């Protein structure tokens, strides 16, 4: 036997090394020359790039900032960025909540035995997911809400809620008496703890005797009763700030400005169509055998849905739905079309226009979205790992 020496160009390890090294070099070179070109372009064109504008006072006003108060003449650019980020997160959370509820509703309707209900759900899904979201946002905002909602003086009244062309105005509670309201919150907290203990006890009892109680109903009603009674006893420590019609619009209370309302509405409808499709796919992924087995051991329909179908369907539904949540968050950037002040609108558009610092501003915007995306993948990974452990 004679030892063979492999010619260098046929050694797979070497080949792989050379390929990777040259690719790396090529990409590094490409990135470097883009960097260099950019730097020289900036210099040549006399554009100054620096982050010093972060601490400059923003010379414009952001109209909606429920979390960080915007003070004209004090709020700086970097605070504007955070206001934008918080507004994005706000609309994302509102949208995710509503789209999930609506999506599950439509998705379950899609699998309904009732032919009409099922076809209506199909119509809903096919209509809304096959039209551009931007078109839908503008349609609702400009062609429907702005065109048909009345001005503030003729607002649509729904009890203490007022809907008009400026948005939805809601009452919000405010604290009248610090001590008493602290006590009241304490009582509510205690009653929550109480129901928690009660739920634990009732679970134990169920396990040992098989007797079950409507835990949720009992807890809910007792929390409501307890908090109402103490509220009255304490002499109403909280006031309710009801919006009042002022000179131009409603003052006081909480506000869901029309742009936010339209954006939220459109995002909810659009995303719910996708979630509904996920839910349908999840439910129909469950084999007929599972249903038959559940029936054959005598489970009622409700029990079957709760214990057999939903837990399994959710495993199919949740991962793509989490991706839809990310999509919704990214899609909220279309707010720019209706003037809601989320991060792309106040940062990548207004601030960029006013400072001209395109590089830094766009980069920060991208980093924010990449963080959202990483966070989503992180959650998805955790979920997938957990599912993998409980079922192989």
């Amino acid at each position, binding site marked *: 036997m004679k030892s063979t020496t492999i010619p260098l160009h046929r050694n797979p390890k070497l080949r792989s090394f050379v390929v990777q090294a040259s690719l790396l070099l090529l990409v590094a070179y490409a990135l470097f020359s883009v960097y260099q070109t950019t730097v020289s372009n900036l210099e040549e*064109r006399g554009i100054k790039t620096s982050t010093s504008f972060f601490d400059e006072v923003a010379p414009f006003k952001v109209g909606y900032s429920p979390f960080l108060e915007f003070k004209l003449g004090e709020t700086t650019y970097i605070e504007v960025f955070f206001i934008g980020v918080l507004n994005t997160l706000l609309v994302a959370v509102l949208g995710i909540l509503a789209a999930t509820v609506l999506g599950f509703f439509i998705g379950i309707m899609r699998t309904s035995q009732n032919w009409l209900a099922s076809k209506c759900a199909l119509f809903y899904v096919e209509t809304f997911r096959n039209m551009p979201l931007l078109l839908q946002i503008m349609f609702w905002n400009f062609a429907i809400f702005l065109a048909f909602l009345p001005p503030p003086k003729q607002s649509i009244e729904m009890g203490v809620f007022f809907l008009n062309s400026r948005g939805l105005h809601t009452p919000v509670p405010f604290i009248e008496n610090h001590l008493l309201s602290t006590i009241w919150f304490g009582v509510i907290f205690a009653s929550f703890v109480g129901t928690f203990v009660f739920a634990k006890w009732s679970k134990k009892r169920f396990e040992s005797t098989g007797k079950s109680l409507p835990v949720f109903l009992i807890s809910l009603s007792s929390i409501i009763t307890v908090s109402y009674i103490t509220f009255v006893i304490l002499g109403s420590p909280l006031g309710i700030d009801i919006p009042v019609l002022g000179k131009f619009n409603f003052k006081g209370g909480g506000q869901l400005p029309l742009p936010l309302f339209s954006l939220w509405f459109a995002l909810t409808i659009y995303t719910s169509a996708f979630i509904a499709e996920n839910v349908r796919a999840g439910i129909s992924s469950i084999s007929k055998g599972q249903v038959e087995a559940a029936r054959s051991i005598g489970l009622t329909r409700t029990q079957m849905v709760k214990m057999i179908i939903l837990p399994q369907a959710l495993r199919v539904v949740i991962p793509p739905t989490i991706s839809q949540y990310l999509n919704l968050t990214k899609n909220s950037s279309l707010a720019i079309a209706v*003037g809601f002040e989320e991060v792309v609108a106040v940062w990548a558009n207004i601030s960029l226009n006013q400072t001209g610092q395109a590089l830094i501003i766009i980069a920060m915007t991208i980093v924010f979205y990449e963080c959202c995306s990483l966070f989503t993948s992180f959650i998805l990974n955790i979920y997938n790992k957990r599912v993998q452990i409980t079922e192989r």
Partner: protein
Amino acid sequence: MKKITSLLTGVAFAGIAFANAAYATTLEEVQSRGELRCGVDGGVAGFSAPNDAGKMVGIDASVCDAVAAAVFGDASKVTYIPLTAAERFTALTAGEIDMVSRNTTHTLTRDATLGVNFTYYNFIDGQGFMVAKDAGLSSVKDLDGASICVQTGTTTELNMADYFRNGGMDFTPVGYSTSVQTREGLEGGACDALTSDASQLAAIRSETADPNAWTMLPEIISKEPLGPVVRQGDDQWMDIVAWTLYALINAEELGITSANVDAMKADSPNPSVGRIVGSEGETGANLGLSQDWAYNAIKQVGNYGEIYERTVEPLGIPRAGSVNDLWTRGGILYAPPVR
């Protein structure tokens, strides 16, 4: 096909540094291309908007025409590039266009940090407010607490913030990215007032369903000198754009119109006129242009007064006695002499 080829090479060799621009000066580049690329808004009546035949018209577009006439002797050698507010400066500094004539306010920050130069002004504007007639408002002071529609990313937004802050008043901005949307917002009741440059307000009002339902408040809260912008670092080109504009203003001052410019050229005792229409002096050569550069601009586009009358007057913004009138008639338009 040139663009497609350059696209392909550009994509393929995105990272590989190219040799610098082949042309040393903007003028040479424009001349060799055979057309002027001029950035405009494209959607503001009276300034730049397509007419029925699809041609861009307006006082901003006319400046482009005049520069093309000065460079080529042919005012039609222009390609108008509609730009958003956000893109106008990058498009200019990247060399995608040769000049911006897009109702752009001259400010220190823009001048000093964006790599651009402002020339002179083709329209001097100021920011005003428009409200519903039946709202019973007579002054901006009445707007304390109001919602105000505004186009975002403009100086308008900043002036409003300053003004309200100064007066200790409160307001809620309702920001839209285009001026058409601000109009829809106002008409739909999203805001109590709309703020923009006075000229734009007039244009917007003319586009509402019922122009008589809206009225302008008397205050003008800012200075908005609007004019063409060029890239920094090419003084010759800056001179060409600036002096074309000056020539149009001087022409009005001297009574040269597109109708009588031929006659003036043939026989004018006034040396100032002669220098403009090219019968005297070396004005064109100094700029690197032909001798009849200003003659062509005036002949084909008209003097400043004619342009104004043709484009802005129909919006309902009278000129007589306003800041946009000549200095000789109480306005502030004052062009340095062509000599």
